[in-house]
């Protein structure tokens, strides 16, 4: 299991003594600044330190965008929501009290925004036709028409992988919103049960039950792949 931020590390910035914003808005981070906890950074933001906000943005933009993308299944919308999350964090800086983990607070904002967005869009989804531009399955976010397989030696392998990923994404999409949020927070953000329970405003035992039902649904939905996977590992 791996954290998204760890699997896709951001380019290491050049060393510099103090965090600072240059003219082209690229940020230098000192080792000391990077070692500061989220809560310390947020308290610095509260005290008016813009560079600490920049560090939080740097730390959490990828996990947030990925979480929101998997919730709403639209890259542009996911980025808009992630930006909204950061804006809300910035707005709330003056009233920030470190009573809980920063990630709990951050993902609670993100989850609420995502759930609202999913509920708003539930009846607005359009049917995908063969000639309509599609974005829902494009992990790289590029809008493109549905791919028609080309004659290529590896095309069959690519196609199989593509179908496999689509099945997994489809299985996640089919989960009820709260179960989906629980699975994403548990699997990809690696938050502990207490944190996820706080984010979803439920008890730990209710969360465990929610996750169990979600995994059961995924197991059924992905039965052919699960059997194959279990066979490979068995």
């Amino acid at each position, binding site marked *: *299991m*791996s954290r*998204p931020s760890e*699997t*896709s590390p951001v380019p290491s910035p050049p060393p510099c003594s103090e965090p600072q914003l240059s003219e082209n*808005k690229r940020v230098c981070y000192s080792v000391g600044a990077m070692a500061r906890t989220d809560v310390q950074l947020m308290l610095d933001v509260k005290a*008016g330190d813009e560079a600490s*906000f920049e560090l939080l*943005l740097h730390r959490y*933009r*990828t996990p947030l*965008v*990925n979480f929101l*993308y*998997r919730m709403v299944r639209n*890259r542009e919308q996911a*980025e808009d929501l*992630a*930006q909204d999350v*950061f*804006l809300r964090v*910035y*707005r709330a800086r*003056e009233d920030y009290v470190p009573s809980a983990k920063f990630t709990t607070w951050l993902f609670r904002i993100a989850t609420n925004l995502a759930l609202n967005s999913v509920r708003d869009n539930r009846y607005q989804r359009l049917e995908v036709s063969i000639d309509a531009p599609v974005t829902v399955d494009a*992990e*790289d*976010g590029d809008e493109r028409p549905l791919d028609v397989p080309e004659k290529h030696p590896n095309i069959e392998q690519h196609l199989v992988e593509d179908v*496999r*990923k689509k099945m*997994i*994404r489809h299985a*996640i999409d089919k989960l009820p919103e709260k179960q989906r949020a629980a*699975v994403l927070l*548990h*699997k*990809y953000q690696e938050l*502990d*049960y207490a944190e996820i329970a706080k984010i979803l405003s439920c008890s730990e*035992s209710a969360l*465990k*039950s929610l*996750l*169990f039902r979600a*995994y059961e649904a*995924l*197991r059924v939905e*992905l039965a052919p*792949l*699960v*059997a194959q*996977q*279990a066979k490979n*590992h*068995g």
Partner: protein
Amino acid sequence: MSCERMESRILSYVDGRLKENERQDVEKHLAACSACQLRVEEFRAVSGLLDELPIIEPSPAFNARVHALVAAEPPRKQDWWAWLHVSPRIAFAASALLVAALWLGFMGRQHNQQLPWSNPQVADEQMMQDLPVLEDHDVLSNFEPLKELPPPVQADQTSDSQQM
């Protein structure tokens, strides 16, 4: 442990998040229950499949858009207590001045309370002591001392003297 009880622990077991004693309990149950054993394998498979989804990177303009949103925010509200953080010396001096002012006010009030006219009871007692003088009509009806006062200056006289 029952299969029902396993439901709340199976995922923690797959993730390796159980405590040592809990893990031993689960493994003991798994050794005797093929259904739960199969479920553990399938949950592991599901977890592995979820790992296959790629990670996306935010678009290059992401940070710039956040900066623009933050820049569009209205300026920070001035905190009334901010001056405390800015200059502790001034804060200390102001506090000392306030305490001194309060102390002086309090002492002044206490001093006023000691004066006879500020306390009605003391004032009454003073009046009772002066009562013989106040009730002495000979003294009060004697206007002789008033005749010894210098005569009042007439308005005409003053204007004449000014003209001269």
